[in-house]
Structure formats: C-alpha cells, structure tokens
C-alpha cells in the first residue's frame, strides 16, 4: 500500500471507487465468460481419456495424438504455408497502395479510404461469395483467360488452396493498408525531400528512407494479417475443400462432427501457442534487423 501511494500520488479514494464502478462490469464479464472458459478448455485438453487413469489426473495424450495425427499435421503445415503466402502477397499489394494513398489528391484519397473501410466493415460471407462467383468455372476470370488464349478449357479454380489464398489476401488488404498508411502519414515529407536534394534517386528514397520509417505500420499489418490467416475458418470453408482444410476447420469438426472435445481443445490450444510463438519470434527479428521500435 505504501509503495502504491508513492507511485500513484494522485489516486484518491473517490477515484478508486470510480475505477471499481467503471471497470467492474466489464471485468466480471470477461473473467466469467472469457478467462474461465479458456482455462476450462486448457484443463479439458489435459484430461486423460477414460480408462487410462493418470497419477495427477493430467495427461498429455491428446497432444501426443496431435503430433501423430496425419490429418492434423497436414492441416497445420497447410495453415502455416497459406498464412505465409497470404502475408507476403498482402504486403506486396498493400504497401504500394498505401504509398499511393499518401501521394494521391484529396478526392482519390477519400474515395480509396472509404472503399477500404467499407471492405473492412463488410460481411466476410458476402466477400467470399464474390470470389466464389468471380473464380467460378464460367466466371469472368476463366472467360478472360480463355479469350486471351491462356487456357483452352475452363480451369476449376474454386474449392482449392489457391482460391482460399486469393480470398484471404482480399480480406486482409484493409488490415495491412490502414496501419501502413497511418505510419507513412507520420513521416515528415522534409526527410524525403532532403534525401532527394542530396542526390538520392526516387527508388533509393523509398528503399532507404520511407520503407525503414514505415516499419511500425508494416509490422502491425504483417502481424495482424498472419494471425488472421492462421485462424481463418469461414474463408477456407467457403473457397476450399475438405482436402484443403485449415487447422481451425479440423478443430471445429472435432466438436461438431466427432464430438471429441478434449482432442479438439488440444488442437485449439496448439494453434494459439504456435501463432503466439511465431509472432513473438517475428517481433524479435524485426527489432534486431530494422532496429525499429515495434
């Protein structure tokens, strides 16, 4: 209490009451219906299967099964691969888009930002449906490729890993573009101007001045895109097939079809842990390589 009083000299009794009233309801809600359900799920995943009594009642058998299940291993590898490609393509599309937004005139900038925002707020099912009809056998992409002579007969593009990647990139573009745009807005134009006046080519200005300084936005967008793809569920459900199932689908089917709750819980926990570890490793690498404060 004494140290608290020293650290927080301005916390008066009235403020303590205010904090309790303002934060209390939300804290109760999130502890009861978020923290406790997750802890129970973690406990469930450590529960021994019936018949095998562990000494402490804790067993890692569901996690061992996870490592030995071919379907889970393939789904996990596919999820990592898809997430990697989605992150790369989204960055390649979004960075020039954000650069253009900063340079564009007021009208174009406003129109593009509204389009990005509507896209961000739009229904995921509606957007995936758009790709379902766009990539259909008789859809415009197939028609164009046949008209150009690239294809002789329509190619089956939907219900595949490729279609899933395209739709996920489409989903992630606003999540990547907006933080990069925000970071680019914070770079003072005088920096590019002085680099240019010292003889740097426009390409070098982007590579050596703008790109490193936009790193906080790029980092935020990359992490968000990667995490969104890792936990993708609706998109692979609509644009993939059972043969291209991602890890969230495999976990969901353990609950909805197999009714194997402990094993499903173990898959979900593994997904959360793997995503977290990759994001932390990426953060450390970015800090080291770019010396960016992210």
């Amino acid at each position, binding site marked *: 209490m004494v140290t608290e009083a020293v650290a927080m000299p301005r916390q008066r009794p009235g403020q303590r009451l205010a904090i309790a009233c303002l934060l209390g309801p939300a804290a109760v809600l999130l502890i009861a219906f978020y923290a406790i359900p997750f802890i129970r799920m973690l406990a469930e995943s450590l529960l021994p299967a019936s018949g095998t009594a562990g000494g402490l009642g804790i067993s890692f058998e569901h996690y061992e099964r996870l490592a030995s299940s071919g379907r889970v291993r393939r789904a996990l590898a596919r999820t990592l691969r898809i997430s990697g490609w989605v992150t790369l393509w989204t960055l390649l599309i979004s960075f020039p888009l954000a650069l253009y937004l900063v340079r564009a005139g007021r009208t174009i900038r406003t129109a593009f930002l509204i389009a990005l*925002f509507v896209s961000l707020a739009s229904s995921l099912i509606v957007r995936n449906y758009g790709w379902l009809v766009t990539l259909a056998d008789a859809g415009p992409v197939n028609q164009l490729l046949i008209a150009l002579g690239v294809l002789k007969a329509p190619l089956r593009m939907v219900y595949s890993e490729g279609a899933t990647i395209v739709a996920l990139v489409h989903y992630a573009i606003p999540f990547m573009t907006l933080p990069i745009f925000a970071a680019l807005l914070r770079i003072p134009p005088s920096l590019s101007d002085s680099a240019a006046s010292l003889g740097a080519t426009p390409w070098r200005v982007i590579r050596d001045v703008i790109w490193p300084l936009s790193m906080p936005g790029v980092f935020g967008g990359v992490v968000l895109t990667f995490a969104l793809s890792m936990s993708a569920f609706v998109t692979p459900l609509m644009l993939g097939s059972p043969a291209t199932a991602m890890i969230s689908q495999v976990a969901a089917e353990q609950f909805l079809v197999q009714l194997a709750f402990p094993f499903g819980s173990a898959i979900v926990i593994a997904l959360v842990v793997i995503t977290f570890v990759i994001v932390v490793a990426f953060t450390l690498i970015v800090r080291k390589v770019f010396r960016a404060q992210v």
Partner: protein
Amino acid sequence: MRRSDAIANPLDRGIAIAGWVAMLFLLFPVLFTTVVSFGAGELIEFPPSGWSLRWYAHIGEIHRVGAAVLYSLLIASCAGVIATLLAVGIALCLVRLPLPGKALVGAFITSPVAVPIVALGIALIQFFIWLGISFTWYSLLIGHLVLVIAYPVRTLVASLALSNPSLEEAAASLGARPLIAFFTVTLPQMKPGLISGFLFAFLISFDNYPISIFLVRGALTVLPIEVFNYISQNFDPTPAAFSTLYTILLSLIIVWAERRWSIISLSVASEGGPGGKRSDR
C-alpha cells in the same frame, strides 16, 4: 506537392498504377456480384442473358430468413450497445484515471480479438453446456459481447487520447460537478469514438459465423448461418442480390458516418505507431 516531378518520374507512375490495380482487385468481386445479381437466368451467368429484379424478391425465400434477421438485429444491437457502454468505463479508466497495471488490463480486455474466433466459440460452448444455458439467445449475446468489446475500447481510447483534458479541468474550476463535467464536456468529445465503436461492434456481431455456429441450435438462428447454408446448397443469384443490398446499405452508413463524425480519420489515427497509444495493442 511537386506535380511536375510526379508526372515525370516513372517510379511515381508505377506506384499510381499499383495503387489502382490494388483497388481494382478489392472492388472487382463486389462489382461483379452486383452485375450478376440483376441476371434473369436460373443460374449465375455472365454476361446475363436478360435483366430482372426477381432475385431481390427471392431473398425472402432464404430458409428462416425472417427469424434470422430478427435474431441477428437483436443480438448485434444489444452487443453493440452494451459493449460500447462498457467500453466508455474501460476507456476512461485506461486514459484518465490512475489505474495500476494499466498496460496489462488493456491487453487483457482487447485480447479476444487476437485469439482465433473458433477457439472462443469452442471454449464458450463447452462452458455454456456445463452451466446448462447453451443454445439460448442470451448465451449467444454473451459470446458476441466478449468478441466485440475490444473494438469500442480501441476507438474510445483513441478519441479520448485525442481530446483535451484541460477542458474538463476548466469546467471543474468553473464549479461544474464531476458528473456534469462528464456529460457536458467529456462525452461530446468521445462522440466519434462512440459512433465508430458501436458501428464496428454491431457489424462484427451481425456478420459473425464462427462463434454462432457453435452457440446456435434449433429455433435459434442468425443471418450469416442461413445465408451460408443457402450459398452451399443453391447456385441461383439470390446470394448475389443479398450481397449487393448488404454492400449498398453498408456503404451508405459508412459514408454518412464519415461525413458526420469523420470515423475514418479517427481509426487511422488510432493505428499504433511510435506516437500512437500502445495500451490498446
């Protein structure tokens, strides 16, 4: 800025082209869906053999669409309003009050957006079955509330951080009671954050499939589930008509909210960065 340079420089031209290509990629599926929604044929065809509005009337034929729309509106409105009200308290604590462990509290409250949504649905349905309240509309509401609460917290923290606390101090020094100062000075400054926070909470709840699929059974149903089922069982343009209607309504709402409260500039300002707020990350 330097218009003559921008035209002369091939790199700038390349960036402009890349920007427009990216925008075309973003808009193409939406525009294409709009075109085929007016087709007259029984199946989706391009180019359409004739034009008709009948698929718009056919939206009413989606299985249980009436109940689904009502439940979705009920859940999304309640989740949006309750989440925004709770977020006002959270944001005030995080920005204005001396709260110990602020960063940790902020991280915990906004963490539901970072966990896989399916994981949230799975954890909750096991918990609701255990409590014996599974497949009720209020357990569905609780699930959506946990999912969406982080969004109004983010926007409200941003608008509070951009607002000016000295105005409240001025009101207090002129003799305003804290509650009066809050309603006349602080709350108006939070308005853009309130609007965009509610809007996002509402829309995310209204569109949610991965949590609802676990929490919904029997008579209880929501719109994304019925639309998803329709898409996977039918190949007529009804979902295209639905998509077009949804996108038009959404665009009108966003343009209106941007004109009135500039919600887009607020959300760009709330993106993290060296100068941005970090407690909401």
